């Protein structure tokens, strides 16, 4: 299901959750949203609807990396406290460190226990987290490596390969 045009994934995820419920399936629908994406009105249309329909089989994540393409979210359209906003729309909201997989897992388990409400887990993240070169680049929503960045790019690849080894079972 494409979510390329931002905001639309909220509605389609809701539709899938409704269909699952009609068919009495027990699985969850996981929806990933960007924080900048929460600028879109359709997110809030969906938020109203999901609460009204008590969609407790829907668990959304917001990748709150505090940036969007043109800069910091607080400078473009300040989102304030995203967790509070979703709470006011009737969702169960949690904040977790987006780099801590154990904490994310715990939050998902908690969300699954919530009945009668959809859940959102706000992930506190840094854009490009884990690669210092990328973290330190301001405009890192979309990056191209030029010939001049050749050495930096190579370093990033080596770092990533080392990280991958950490996750190998």
């Amino acid at each position, binding site marked *: 299901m*494409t979510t390329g045009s931002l905001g639309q994934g*909220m509605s*389609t995820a809701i*539709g899938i959750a409704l*269909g*699952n419920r009609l*068919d009495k399936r027990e699985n969850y629908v996981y929806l990933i949203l960007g924080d900048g994406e929460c600028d879109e009105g*359709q997110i809030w249309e969906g938020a109203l*609807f999901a609460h009204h329909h008590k969609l407790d089989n829907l668990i959304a994540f917001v990748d709150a990396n505090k940036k969007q393409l043109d800069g910091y979210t607080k400078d473009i359209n300040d989102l304030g406290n995203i967790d509070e906003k979703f709470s006011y729309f009737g969702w169960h909201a949690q904040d977790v460190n987006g780099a801590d997989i154990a904490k994310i897992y715990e939050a998902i388990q908690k969300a699954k226990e919530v009945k009668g409400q959809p859940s959102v887990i706000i992930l506190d993240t840094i854009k490009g987290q884990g690669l210092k070169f990328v973290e330190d680049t301001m405009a890192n929503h979309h990056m191209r490596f030029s010939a001049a960045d050749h050495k930096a790019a190579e370093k990033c690849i080596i770092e990533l390969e080392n990280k991958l080894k950490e996750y190998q079972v």
Partner: protein
Amino acid sequence: MTILLAKNNVKEDIEMRNVYCQALMELARKNDQIVVLDADLMSSMGMIPFLEAFPERTFNCGIQEANMIGVAAGLSTTGKIPYAHTFGPFATRRCYDQIFLSGAYTKSNIRIIGSDPGITAAYNGGTHMPLEDMGIMRNIPEMTVLEITDSVMLRDIIIQMAELYGMFYVRLLRKNAVKVYEEGSTFKIGKAVKLKDGKDVTIIANGIMVSEALKAAYILEEKRISTRILDMFTLKPIDKEAIIVSAKETGAIVTVENHNIINGLGSAIAEVLVENIPIPMERIGVKDMFGEVGSVDYLKERFELTANDIVKKVEKVLKRKQDMALFLQGA
């Protein structure tokens, strides 16, 4: 396809919205995958009986058309068969990107119903008049675009669509249509219906303009002009063959639509003619203007959509046909 034509050009007793609701209830009783969505216009669309009979399969999203389309798309991925309704402009312009991407691009299975076509929004005025809806829907790849003529066609199409997969836009009247087809008529999506044969000119119309075209044909008969009439209820995929055959056999076409003359029926037919058989063609439609408040009869006069306007255009196109013949003779 079985066509039985009604006589007399009179209004039907039953409202289209009641036929819509009844057809959906019939489908829902047999098929538990049928689901209905609306954006706070269920009462306007006569759908309360459906809601009462099938509350778990009715999703009134409230005034949020973008979400409604996405929810319909999501439901369709789980095997449900959604029929999503709101007024024409809100079913198309308002949620265009959602129809395009969550719908067509993703290959979802949604029937989008846009009611109160063109001037039939009447006293709701310009804000509620869809005069570009057919055109913008036609511009989406893999979209089937239909305009319903009367309740007999409506019932048949609503029922047929339950067995089909894809994206559909259906434009229809909420209140009483003029009866064109007798009970028992069945239709083939993509095939125009020849309502009347003739050899001097072909009038191609859809929706409420079909009955107007029939009125014009009677006037033209008195002027000894033999008129063929086609009901092109499927705008996309357009019935190319019917257009080319009529162009060959009559040599002149007038298109009539309750829609902007830009990008609707006239444009679609012109595209076929230009690439195959460029005979003279004239368009009747709203001349790229905004809608206005008024009764349907007043608006027909205002926007030059009456039988008399059609007759004038036929006379114009016949003059062009004559001029072209002379020109070609001289060549």
